[in-house]
């Protein structure tokens, strides 16, 4: 038994044990024990993933464990990457949960389900048969649903969010189920080895791909199946949001890569054009909605849609290049996508944990009521700032490296071929660039309005720093961000190995120790050097400024305030006002609803008593796409009540007549 197998076994058994402890331990010790247990599970999973990424692997088949299909597990490099990511996020969230869960989240159910959720997410990328994958996928959906519901007694919005999540995740499950079952029906067996060998006709393969794509994309929060994400992520407890947003949505990407590349062996161009287009639309639309959002966690949720969209751009581009036969570029694009998965997991868990800390201190997620948190919560502010920098794709942030790799792959793909490719690649480059720009604006808004300036509400003024274990959880996530930002070369071989599994074993697309060099195409980048350069530039310019300023006489004076009295929090930019110019620019896309009510004095029309301004940016995709469907379902349901008159005899009669009708049909047609 090698390291990968033993540590994976340890991860699963510690997780299961922690779930039992969570159900049995006393209320006082529960959250501590579960937090430590979950973190240990994460460490073991990290070890297992790391060992498997360096070449070890293991397989396990237990045909008797589940009825019908049994359980079969295989840990290869592709799955190991996702196991390691989930493990890493679980470490940070487990440590964070020790004290975060004390405040109303320490019920037996929540504490028992939390480690189970982590275990389910660890098992999904390791499953190596259709039945096993579906069982663990469903386990993951159910446990996450229970966790989303954790605070349903406190806020009525939780129940509605959970309903959306439950319906959409199960519809996704149904499409994945039908896709994989169709696939397995055309193969000699239902384990992945048999599926790889299967000779399926192109139309069946396309059907399988489209069905599974719909299910996996909905889990990844990709448009137009994203509607659950901005609802469920804000309403879940923050460490659960972090797990969902940084680990669970990744498994959607895993599913697309596993089925599309590994099992179906690539495919025609249009599959990957579709994936790329979905990714590009999700990236731009997600970040636009995030820029408009005033709810901190909703903003982060939409940013998840954006980042997963970027990942899908990479996956789509990789598929497209592979379909053209360009193995170098396809390896590069997939490596960029997988590296972005890693980076996104790191900074999104940091951001969600910091948002949880804010929620813990102030009780509100509304950016318009926050502000001035820097004084009360310096560590949380620093953590969120570091996460925001990482998310906005600027050096020395983490997302910069992966987005740079992605852009390199897309730009070098330009002259590959005429036709669709020549149009798609520039558009994709533009989408990535636009997304990156909007991301900067979004996170400047979130950080500047939420944490700097003066407090705009009573709660924000009384904010206090969180307990040490929560800070430690954020610190771990922040450390991961720093490592990924400064030394991406440490993880790039692992990412290369993972993409090698998907695309069929080839050398890593990226080489180098300090400087990243692209293999096969021109291009190099050294994040460490850029960071050092930026630091030197910052120190020098500050020094020069200070030296220049010291020479002049200094005068301290009040800030100019138009003569309107001392500056107050009411004069600051709010999240709404900060986003207003962007809202104007993207007016046609967002279709915001604005309402200005001017109230006059009785005496004169020229004297204004009050001006009320209301703005709402509804999700347009949701309104156009979901509401007709929901209306149709509701109408169908109302029509159904005519059948249900309340008479028991009538209900029984339905069954009787159907049975007799069926029997007569059988007798006649046989």
């Amino acid at each position, binding site marked *: 038994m090698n390291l990968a197998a033993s540590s994976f076994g340890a991860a699963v058994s510690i997780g299961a044990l922690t779930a039992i402890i969570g159900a049995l331990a006393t209320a006082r010790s529960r959250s501590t024990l579960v937090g430590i247990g979950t973190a240990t599970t994460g460490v073991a999973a990290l070890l297992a993933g790391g060992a498997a990424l360096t070449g070890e692997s293991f397989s396990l088949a237990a045909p008797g464990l589940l009825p019908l299909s049994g359980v079969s597990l295989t840990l290869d490099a592709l799955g190991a990457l996702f196991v390691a990511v989930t493990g890493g996020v679980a470490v940070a969230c487990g440590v964070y949960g020790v004290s975060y869960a004390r405040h109303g989240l320490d019920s037996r159910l929540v504490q028992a389900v939390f480690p189970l959720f982590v275990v389910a997410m660890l098992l999904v990328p390791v499953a190596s048969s259709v039945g096993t994958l579906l069982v663990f996928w469903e386990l993951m959906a159910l446990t996450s649903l229970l966790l989303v519901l954790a605070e349903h007694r406190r806020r009525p919005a939780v129940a509605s969010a959970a309903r959306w999540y439950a319906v959409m995740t199960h519809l996704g499950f149904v499409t994945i189920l039908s896709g994989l079952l169709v696939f397995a029906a055309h193969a000699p067996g239902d384990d992945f080895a048999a599926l790889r060998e299967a000779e399926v006709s192109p139309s069946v393969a396309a059907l399988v791909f489209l069905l599974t794509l719909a299910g996996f994309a909905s889990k990844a929060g990709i448009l137009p199946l994203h509607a659950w994400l901005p609802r469920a992520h804000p309403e879940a407890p923050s460490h659960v949001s972090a797990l969902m947003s940084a680990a669970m949505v990744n498994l959607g990407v895993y599913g697309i890569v596993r089925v599309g590349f590994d099992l179906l062996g690539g495919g025609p161009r249009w599959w990957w054009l579709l994936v790329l287009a979905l990714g590009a639309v999700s990236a731009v639309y997600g970040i636009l909605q995030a820029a408009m959002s005033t709810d901190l966690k909703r903003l982060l949720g939409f940013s998840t849609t954006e980042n997963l969209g970027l990942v899908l751009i990479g996956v789509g581009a990789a598929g497209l290049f592979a379909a053209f036969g360009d193995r170098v570029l396809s390896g590069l694009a997939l490596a960029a996508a997988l590296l972005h998965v890693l980076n996104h997991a790191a900074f999104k868990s940091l951001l969600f944990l910091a948002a949880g800390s804010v929620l813990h201190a102030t009780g509100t997620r509304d950016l318009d009521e926050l502000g001035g948190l820097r004084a009360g919560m310096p560590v949380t502010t620093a953590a969120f700032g570091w996460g925001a920098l990482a998310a906005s794709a600027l050096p020395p942030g983490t997302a910069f490296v992966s987005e740079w790799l992605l852009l390199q792959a897309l730009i070098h793909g330009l002259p590959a071929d005429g036709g669709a490719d020549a149009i798609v690649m520039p558009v994709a480059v533009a989408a990535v660039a636009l997304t990156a720009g909007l991301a900067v604006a979004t996170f400047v808004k979130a950080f500047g309005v939420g944490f700097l300036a003066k407090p705009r509400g009573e709660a924000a003024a009384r904010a206090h720093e969180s307990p040490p274990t929560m800070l430690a959880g954020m610190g771990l996530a922040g450390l991961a961000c720093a490592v990924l930002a400064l030394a991406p070369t440490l993880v790039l071989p692992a990412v290369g190995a993972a993409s090698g599994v998907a695309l069929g074993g080839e050398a890593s697309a990226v080489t180098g120790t300090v400087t990243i060099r692209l293999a096969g195409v021109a291009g190099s980048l050294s994040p460490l050097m850029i960071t050092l350069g930026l630091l030197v530039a910052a120190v020098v310019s500050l020094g020069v400024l200070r030296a220049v300023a010291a020479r002049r006489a200094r005068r301290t004076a009040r800030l100019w305030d138009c003569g309107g009295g001392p500056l107050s929090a009411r004069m600051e930019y709010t999240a709404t006002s900060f986003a207003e110019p962007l809202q104007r620019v993207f007016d046609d896309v967002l279709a915001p609803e604005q309402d200005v009510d001017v109230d006059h004095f009785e005496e004169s029309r020229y004297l204004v008593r009050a001006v009320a301004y209301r703005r709402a940016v509804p999700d347009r995709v949701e309104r156009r796409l979901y509401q007709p469907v929901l209306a149709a379902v509701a109408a169908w349901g109302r029509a159904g*009540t005519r059948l*249900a*008159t*309340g*008479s*028991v*005899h009538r209900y*029984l*009669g339905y*069954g*009787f007549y159907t*049975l*007799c009708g069926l*029997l*007569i049909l*059988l*007798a006649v047609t*046989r």
Partner: protein
Amino acid sequence: MNETLFTQLVDLTAGAMLLTAVLILWRRELAVIVRVFALQGLALAGLVAVLAAHEDSGELWAIAVGIGVLRAGVLPYLLRRALAVAARRETAPLVNVAASLLAAAVLMMLAYVVSAPLVSLAPSPATRAIPVGVAVVLIGFFVLVTRRRALSQVVGFLLLDNGITAVGFLTTAGIDLAVEIGVSLDVLLAVLVLQLLTTRMREAFGDTDLDGLRELRD
């Protein structure tokens, strides 16, 4: 036991089941219905006992005894207890008695037609009685649909279950003991719950005409 005797006994017990099912459809006195139902339980137990003697299987004998106790003893007893507090007569069924009997004839023909392929799979005296079991199922369902009193509906449900059990034994000549015990316990539980509900309904509404429950929906 020789083949002729076995065939005759199977036909006799299966015929008794069918006859009792039709009798339940015909009679309106609830007390009589319960008594006839107990007779049918006895016939079913007899059918299983004949199979047991033919197969010479101790397990089947045990099941036969169990079925006899449950369906000819316990269930009729429970029904009679519910009867003590409920109305005495099935008034105004949704389909009158004459039409019910005609419908039963049609259902029987349907049962014969649809179970013909089953019989032809493995023709034997036991499988030739399958149509009777199917007919009992359909008649039980018919009782469930057309009778108004809660008690006669319970009898309809039990008739349905008797038919299913008979078909099960006739096709496989031996359901697993554990399965049979599980099913029997289910039926017992269902009857207990229904009895409870009947009593509560009578207390709440003074009647057990199920059509009176129409207002309860939504």
